[in-house]
């Protein structure tokens, strides 16, 4: 499952990145390395963009980008 499949409040852990090149580098720079916990905090109109809580800060990604991030579901809370 990908980050885009998580709904508001759900938590996951990064498994892998599908992205290549510059996008992969950027996501790694933000700390999206395997094993990193991530949580969906806000979802915009129509599901994109959404804001994710990651290593102490909030980042917004569009749906196409969130689909590049493979995660496993961990649970939910807000």
């Amino acid at each position, binding site marked *: 499952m990908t980050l885009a499949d998580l709904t508001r409040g759900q938590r996951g852990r990064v498994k892998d990145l599908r992205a290549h090149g*510059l*996008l992969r*580098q*950027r*996501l*790694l*720079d*933000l*700390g999206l*390395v*395997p094993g*990193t916990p991530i949580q969906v*905090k*806000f*979802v*915009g*109109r*129509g599901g*994109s*963009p959404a*804001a994710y809580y990651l*290593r*102490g*800060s*909030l*980042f*917004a*990604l*569009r749906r*196409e*980008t969130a689909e590049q991030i493979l995660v496993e579901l961990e649970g939910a809370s807000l």
Partner: protein
Amino acid sequence: MKESCLAALAGNPNTGKSTLFNALTGLKQHTGNWPGKTVEMKKGSFQHHGWTCEVVDLPGTYSLTPASPEEEAARDFLRSGNSDAVVVVADATCLERGLHLALQVMQLTPKTILCLNLMDEAKRQRLRLDVDELEGELGIPVVPTTATKGEGLEELKDAIIRVAQGQLQPRPVPVGSDADEPAAALYRRAEEIAARVARGSPVPRPSLTSRLDKLVISPGFGIPFMLALLAGVLWLTLVGAGYPSELLAAAFSRGERHLSLLLNTAGFPRWLHDPLVLGMYRGLAWVVAVMLPPMAIFFPLFTLLEDFGLLPRIAFNLDRSFQRAGAHGKQSLTMAMGFGCNAAGVVAARIIDSPRERLVAVLTNNFVPCNGRFPLLMVMGGVVAAAAPALAGGWVPSLVVMGAMVVSVLATLLVSRLLTATILRGEPSFFILELPPYRLPRVGTVLVRSFLDRTLAVLWRAVVVAAPAGLLTWVLANVSVQGVTLLSHFSAWLNPLGRAMGLDGMILLAFTLGLPANEIVIPILLMGYLSADSLLAVEDLAAMRAVLTANGWTWLTALNFIIFALFHWPCGTTLLTIRRETGSCKWTLLAALLPTALGICLCIVLTIIVKLWPM
């Protein structure tokens, strides 16, 4: 022993690096570009214990992978070995990301200091960090600071000087690297260190930021909230500017009498006195009296909201629409800059990496009205309000301006869609937007900086243009060929097109002469209408309305005027900026043609509809 040194500030975005830079260097700053790059460089200096330390503020980056011009600039500087000390500014509340950058910097230079900024926020989150342990783990000096309150600055300056002098020699602990994915290895090490130095368990509680965000970026309330905020800001600007504008106008008119007396006493002939006083001085007075008060209110308010952290939220809310238009997410930020100044918005488009999407942002920036066009909209709002006194007076001008702004955003989206569906087709590139926590702005600093950096800068540019434009208009209105002034000749020539658009030749001429700066359009127009030998005195809105009505203005004329004020060619400065940024005359021409064509079409269509409407 050398008495001066060079230090660099590196850090992630939103760690308070700029605040720290301002706190270290005060107002002794200058900005420029990195050699050969379109990345802004800020430099400043401070004195400490007899030392003079120059400080370079490197661009805020998440890493030193040379993938963007910013990172390349930062990396090249650190590699050059020119700096005597490098301060990595980290957000104490998200240590891992800061450590990730610090570990990279340490690989390039041993003279690294870690500055743990935002310690007050960490305390609020009951997050305690063992600084000694952190120094041990990294092998470099660590200084906790709260830049907004000036806490820890002396210690940081001490550390910089001592590292630069060589008294303090950091010995960075090396990190085992993973050749495939160095970022993963660095983050694992960062996690390890962060876990080891954290003391006590922070109590997670719903922060002010997440409670506010539930309103500000919610799918239902986000957009209405933004519109309400915009209406409030405009209302404050318009209501607040009224009285100071009157005072300034009165002062300028007293000044005019003194100036006139002075020139007459000095024996200036009439042909020199009139263009100087009635052309130049009055043009200048109009621009200052009309523009300074709203700008002195609008810019600080805008800067306060920006400092508070609202801009990324606005980008978040608007992003759905920008996605549909095929535009880059950062285009909403360059558009927001355009409301201040279109030339600045065009320059800001550099933050978009993809050339195609940057071009879309550059070509559409002029569709939103800049601060120089606000006075046109405000005055027209006043004209509309005066026509309908029954309506709640104070709100009408601000509603008119707000309506114009909403229309301009819709036009931006529509034209972006048009461009990305035709000549600028392509896959959208990715977009990552950080939403930093809301931070209370430091009101005093914001007021001073927004006044110095924005208000005075924009005003100065307007003044430089207004004086010669006033002079030129006076000449055109007073030099006659075959008994008719040049101004009348030109306006007669433009009249057929103007009539078709529900305007007239004089209005089009005023916009044409207003090319250097839109602020001058209304004074030129009034002067043309009065066919008098000078610009109208500034203070009287009612008299102005009478002049407009006498020249056949109706509500349709005012509406068409507003449309054309929104959609016509960019001002001279913006055109030159587009030429410089795109390096192409072709794109510059298109940037001028697009809004002009839209404006002309809209006005003609509206005029035809209204005339055919059975009433």
